[in-house]
């Protein structure tokens, strides 16, 4: 989980960074160019394959581990209590993961399927910037994107520092720094993504 987790963490930096070009105030010109490059350049399309494999391994590993962990405690406790130091989201990574998967399916349906139908079935190229406006100004999609991002925030808050521990990196000097970096990363990435629907919704863009 650690390796694939860090890989997906790295992907989110690229994704958030490229999408942030919508804030260039040029009516999406830079963003549409970027979007066109990412969906048409064959190197990017090859890397996209790697990304899908990363997601699939992460999800399948998660499912296998969850199954094993359930089997490790066939009779459940009638009562369990955790001290405040134990984060609730660390215990619900599987549920948060399912929420993110549902969110991802919705997200791909909104923005990914059309680029593929254009590539393979000759549909007309979509103006992705206008497509974003179309999706994010609908209250239902707006709310679902916010819920999905909240799940992503908590998944990352645990996942970032957890990946380092899983790979054997725990050190009195560096671990406190890794934990702070993890919180900063999670908040900045999710905030950046959240600003996109918000910007379209409130009419900044």
């Amino acid at each position: 989980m650690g390796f694939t987790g860090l890989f997906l963490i790295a992907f989110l930096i690229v994704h958030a960074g490229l999408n942030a070009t919508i804030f260039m105030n040029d009516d999406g010109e830079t963003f549409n160019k970027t979007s066109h490059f990412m969906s048409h350049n064959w190197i990017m399309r090859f890397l996209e394959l790697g990304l899908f494999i990363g997601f699939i391994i992460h999800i399948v590993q998660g499912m296998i581990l969850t199954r094993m962990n359930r089997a490790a405690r066939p009779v459940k406790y009638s009562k369990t209590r955790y001290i405040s130091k134990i984060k609730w989201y660390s215990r619900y990574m599987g549920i948060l993961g399912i929420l993110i998967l549902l969110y991802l399916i919705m997200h791909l349906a909104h923005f990914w399927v059309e680029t593929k139908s254009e590539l393979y079935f000759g549909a007309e190229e979509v103006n992705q910037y206008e497509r974003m406006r179309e999706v994010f100004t609908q209250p239902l999609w707006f709310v679902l994107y916010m819920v999905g991002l909240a799940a992503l925030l908590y998944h990352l808050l645990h996942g970032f520092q957890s990946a380092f521990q899983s790979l054997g990196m725990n050190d009195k000097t560096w671990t406190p720094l890794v934990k702070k970096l993890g919180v900063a990363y999670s908040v900045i990435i999710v905030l950046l993504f959240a600003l996109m629907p918000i910007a379209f919704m409130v009419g900044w863009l």
Partner: protein
Amino acid sequence: MEHYTMNLTLKVWRQKNSETVGHFETFEVKDISSEMSFLEMFDVLNEQLISEGKDPIAFDHDCREGICGACSMYVDGRAHGPWEKNTVCQLHMRAYHDGDTIVVEPWRSAAFPVIKDLMVDRRAFDRIIEAGGFVSVNTGNAPDANSIPVSKVAADEAFDAAACIGCGACVAACPNGSAALFIGAKVSQLAFLPQGDAERASRVKNMVDQAAKEGFGNCGNIYNCEAECPKGISVGNIAKMKREYMRASVSSGPAGIRSES
């Protein structure tokens, strides 16, 4: 601290053996002293049950001074009860007040089958230790003291890991039922030291492989093990175990001695 007595309601897990399905049974205990230990309170209850001609509640205990790791009760949703860095034998009744209801369950893990009531079979831990095998030492005349230099930092880390009493609270408290903290402590206490270096790679591989066979869960880095460990064993030892395992996986040379199982 002022002495007081209390009446309590206990909901205790009763189970005949590992083959049968258990259930909770409710008991009332009266005039419990605030200075009793939690286990002494159980002794009072058991005396009461024996005098009534009923089956007393089976539970593990030995030293009753918090160092042997025999006692194992999951009290009100926490391993070894509400106090931190504490075993249930050193939990005292001043933690409770008159009229309280206390739920007591055994450690729940597929690798720790219930023997009876609150008593579980923790021999899976013994098998993991056995899988670790022996440590090579020079025999013959007694060596001079400090003939093998060990840094203060390494000695402290090894000593902290060796504080593990093998009670199983880490497994009991882990939402995934993982034994990672126990194995981490047992691997680290030797891996930090130059002694036993000859078996360093085979030890960690054999111990981790044995744990997987026992049916423990996987570490999800939730860290409830560290929070509930009576000896405060650090999860840094789990990371150390992972480093050792990765090192053992990539190191060349003889595969080491495998224990028969």
